């Protein structure tokens, strides 16, 4: 170290040729209170497209197109001092045919269940508005929400309250909430038989409690339990059930009460070396219709440079059947319940998705994504004797544009 009494001969420091103001700004705005309150808006378009019902699973032996849904979502979050208001407006266009009932291919000869689709292609619109008011009160963050949703034949009004509590200096936080929804169904179509209901309604109550644990500097575990209680008309007014020895077609008929329970664990692990985060989630579901389900989801959140983020994900799902489900029935059940809805059948499903996001100058962000889903008896956790012919396969494409100002 033969340096003299001044630093003229010392090595001149070299700074990066391209310092990043956005990196400095992001770090500065992460400081408590420094981020200026900004209005955030997002516009999301998504297209949901079900694959055709293949001829080998349909009653008339030909392929049938199924549902398509176009969804437009507009989200606005506006800060009001230390409070905030969030509005979500959704508009959906649904069209296509849906499964109506399941019958044996040829009663007495070939018992293979095949799907009968609803005749005419329907087209309907749904509009939904959700408003949330977020406010801190007594050291706890509160959220109060109200929602209203309307379709041709359906209206739902909902409300809820949530909280999140993070004790100062603690490695865990507590959250919880309750929600209530009142749904009214007023069938306007599908009145092919006299037993179609005129109108019906249901009440739903949901509650959840969660704890988030900071395990170490890079790992967070979120655990939660939830309970749901639905009371009222829970059947599908547009579906029928085929009975071999009986009146042949009867209404889809489910219990007037359903209690649901879930327990979930979500692990978030940040991997600094590769600039990525691993999300691993598990959810257990059980209801008093005897459906038990497991969901495992893995996703990888990878930052690429300063502007790109790519998120591949894989989800596996498996459920057992509702006790009153069958593709079709030989004789009516003594309790009068019956459903051949594929969603109550035993099956498993795989979902693969990929999301890509890019930050643009001026606080804009653009994103595209795709998701492929396939349900099959082969993916179920236990072997399924008879697979529902109505199981669905779909693709979702979405596009997102967001900004803040």
């Amino acid at each position: 170290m033969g340096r003299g009494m001044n630093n003229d001969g010392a090595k001149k420091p070299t700074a990066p040729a391209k310092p990043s103001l956005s990196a400095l700004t992001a770090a500065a705005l992460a400081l408590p209170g420094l981020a200026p309150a900004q209005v955030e808006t997002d516009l999301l378009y998504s297209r949901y497209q079900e694959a055709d019902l293949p001829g080998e699973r349909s009653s008339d032996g030909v392929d049938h197109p199924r549902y398509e849904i176009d969804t437009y979502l507009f989200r606005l979050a506006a800060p009001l001092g230390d409070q905030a208001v969030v509005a979500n407006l959704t508009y959906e266009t649904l069209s296509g045919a849906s499964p109506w009932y399941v019958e044996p291919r040829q009663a007495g000869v070939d018992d293979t269940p095949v799907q009968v689709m609803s005749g005419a292609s329907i087209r309907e619109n749904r509009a939904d508005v959700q408003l949330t008011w977020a406010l801190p009160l007594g050291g706890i963050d509160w959220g109060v929400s109200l929602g209203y949703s309307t379709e041709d034949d359906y209206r739902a009004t909902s409300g809820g309250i949530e909280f999140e509590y993070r004790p100062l200096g603690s490695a865990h936080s507590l959250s919880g909430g309750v929600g209530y929804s009142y749904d009214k169904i007023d069938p306007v179509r599908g009145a092919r038989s006299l037993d179609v209901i005129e109108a019906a309604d249901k009440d739903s109550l949901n509650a959840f409690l969660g704890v988030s644990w900071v395990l170490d500097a890079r790992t967070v575990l979120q655990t939660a339990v939830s309970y749901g209680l639905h009371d009222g008309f829970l059947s599908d007014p547009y579906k029928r059930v085929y009975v071999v020895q009986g009146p042949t077609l009867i209404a889809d008929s489910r219990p007037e009460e359903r209690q649901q329970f879930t327990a979930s664990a979500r692990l978030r692990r940040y991997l600094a070396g590769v600039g990525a985060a691993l999300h691993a989630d598990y959810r257990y579901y059980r209801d008093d219709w005897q459906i038990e389900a497991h969901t495992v989801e893995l996703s990888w959140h990878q930052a690429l440079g300063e502007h790109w983020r790519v998120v591949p994900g894989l989800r596996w799902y498996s459920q057992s059947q509702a006790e009153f489900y069958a593709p079709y029935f030989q004789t009516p059940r003594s309790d009068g319940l019956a459903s051949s809805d594929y969603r109550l059948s035993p099956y498993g499903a795989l979902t693969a998705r990929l999301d890509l996001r890019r930050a643009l100058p001026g606080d804009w962000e653009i994103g595209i994504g795709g998701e492929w889903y396939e349900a099959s008896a082969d993916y179920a956790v236990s072997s399924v004797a008879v697979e529902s012919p109505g199981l669905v396969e779909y693709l979702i494409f979405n596009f997102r544009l967001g900004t803040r100002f």
Partner: protein
Amino acid sequence: MAVLRVHRFKALGGPCTLYAYAGDDAALRAGEAEARRIEAKYSRYRDDSIVSRINAAAGMAAVEVDEETAALLDYAATAHAQSGGLFDITSGVLRRVWNFKTERVPTQAEIDALLPLIGWDQVEWQRPHIRLPRAGMQIDFGGFGKEYAADRIAALLRAAGVRHGLVDLAGDICVLGPHQDGSAWQVGVRHPRAAGAIATVPLRHGAIASSGDYERGFVHDGRRYSHILDPRSGWPVQGLAAVSVLADQCLIAGTAATCAMLLGDEQGPAWLAALGLPHLVVDAQMRVRGSVQSAP
């Protein structure tokens, strides 16, 4: 009725003045309280501050820090990376040999003995745990604490409804909005060698921070020793007399001004231009140049 209220106090090592068009003094008093909170929390002179606790554990255990401190450490890490290691909160250890009050120039051997204790890249920082790996290492928030306080006080005043005002923490300035009549605040940039301003910058919003060889520096044998020490050599910077930078956050303006001083006459202005921040530099010959519209 909103009149211009002026609140003066001394904190964070210098004179502070808060200006606000407000109905009463409540917000200004809360601003002073915030400056004192940050001073107490991050002062290296107080044994109970988080900085003292981290430094006391150097060479030993990791210390767990709260969310605010973690965000400040994250910021320091980012500034270190973006400045190629020039912005370094571990360089304060050089004060052991550089005493700007007694105006003594240390020997190279004294400086060389301290250099191994400097380097943010040695620090084990894994949110929320920080560990200084060598005994004798220390961090301090002197290089950005006052700027952070200016931003915090501005945010506090803004949340209290102040739309026309200015926060001045000994030259680190945040503007909340223009005067009530819409006119800009005339912010003076201090002359490095004489009393008064070398330039005046009109500001309606944003922040301005300055760094110069005039603060706590001294002249020994005809040579000027600035208090801004290069973390790599351990010697005071040379080249520029002062740098002022404009940014949306005082924190960033201050970091950029410090880094430009460290980079010197040639590289400093180019680095600021690459960051895209308006600036004003005063060179050793007291020539003012830069991209800011200013009046002499």
